[in-house]
């Protein structure tokens, strides 16, 4: 197997995507996009997990990623439901306008 | 005559499972399919008189339309080879779609026996709705609904028929004339 991709390539990819996600969270005002950025971060973590898995010949990391996906699904379904119910109260998705915690 | 439709049909358990009923329905359609598919064969081989499909093979075969059928309106040409129309304009007024356009002219004596005659008589079949109001309104038995329905054209402007195109010998319309007489007679016009 020549030309294997070295581990740090994957880690670099993971780090890059993670930072992209962080920047998305920090910069965007649209709450849905912020949510998507969080998904990017989760994905970035998955890359690392699987990369380590691959390099250690182990399956635990893949199960972790599995669980990450599971958690992401749960998080998204509840999070978006919250967004919807917030939207009902205040028809905006602008994160900066959700600055009071009660209605 | 209000129909009451019973919407709460009680289904038996067998029917509520659906699947057997669906299969039954599919059996029926499949049976039709195969009968029709292979039913041709004996017909073509001459072993049978009738096709299995009774649908009319339309452009090749046509059916005789019943007399009550309202095809395109035409003008009757009487025995003297003159149109019965006297250009009274009643059909023009009766037409809900305003597809009839009549330009009357003074009778010079050679057109027909009455005062006026239609100098131009145009029906736009692209507009006509084949309602038959013109026929009903006509006092002179001049305009009739024929059984001709094949009037498709490639150009809109060709759908406008003028007097010459509209005229049809009254012999061809005998049944319809009879029919209109019977039809509208009792309505005391």
């Amino acid at each position, binding site marked *: 197997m020549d030309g294997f991709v070295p581990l740090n390539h994957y880690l670099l990819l993971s780090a890059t995507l993670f930072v992209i996600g962080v920047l998305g969270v920090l910069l965007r005002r649209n709450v849905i996009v912020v949510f998507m950025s969080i998904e990017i971060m989760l994905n970035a973590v998955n890359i690392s997990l699987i990369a380590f898995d691959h390099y250690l010949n182990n399956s635990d990391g893949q199960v972790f990623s599995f669980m990450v*996906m*599971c958690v992401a*699904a*749960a998080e*998204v*379904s509840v999070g*978006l*439901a919250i967004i*919807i119910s917030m939207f009902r109260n205040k028809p905006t998705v602008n994160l900066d306008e959700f600055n009071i915690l009660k209605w | 005559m209000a129909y009451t439709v019973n919407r709460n049909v009680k289904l038996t358990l067998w029917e509520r499972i659906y699947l057997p009923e669906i299969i039954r329905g599919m059996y029926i359609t499949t049976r039709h399919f195969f009968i029709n598919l292979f039913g041709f064969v004996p017909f073509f081989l001459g072993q049978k008189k009738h096709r299995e499909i009774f649908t009319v093979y339309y452009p090749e075969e046509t059916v005789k339309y019943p007399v009550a059928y309202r095809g395109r309106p035409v003008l009757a040409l009487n025995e003297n080879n003159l149109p019965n129309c006297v250009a009274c304009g009643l059909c023009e007024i009766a037409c809900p779609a305003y597809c009839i356009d009549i330009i009357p002219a003074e009778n010079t004596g050679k057109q027909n026996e009455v005062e006026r005659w239609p100098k131009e008589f145009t029906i736009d079949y692209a507009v006509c709705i084949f309602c038959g109001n013109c026929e009903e309104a006509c006092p002179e038995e001049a305009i009739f609904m024929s059984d001709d329905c094949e009037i498709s054209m490639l150009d809109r402007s060709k759908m406008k028929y003028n007097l010459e195109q509209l005229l049809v010998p009254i012999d061809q319309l005998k049944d319809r004339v009879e029919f209109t007489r019977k039809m509208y007679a009792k309505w005391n016009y």
Partner: protein
Amino acid sequence: MLEQYIGATVMFIMAIGIACGMVFMTSVLGPKRHFAEKMEPFECGEKQIVSPHQRFSVKFYLVAVLFVLFDIEAVFFFPWAILFKKLGMFGFVEMLFFIIILGVGLCYVWIKGGLDWE
């Protein structure tokens, strides 16, 4: 293992080619006659009186949520089904609990009317 993906990749690329080619062809071959009335969105000949950009029922969202969660469930099922004969009774009981817990969720949604469309 990776060699197995060559076929799929080639097919994928070719499929993209076919699809894009078709779109390209239709935009090249077809006539172009634009005028304002024609470009209206189809509304059976009427003017659009309601913008399509309106919010729709939250029920669809509920369906989507249920889909996501059940999809995850199905995804858990797949390796289990493959390994079923190996895991035996243990796996069966394990999955039984899983199904029961999610069945409770399904029942909850069902009772709450999340699956009703009236």
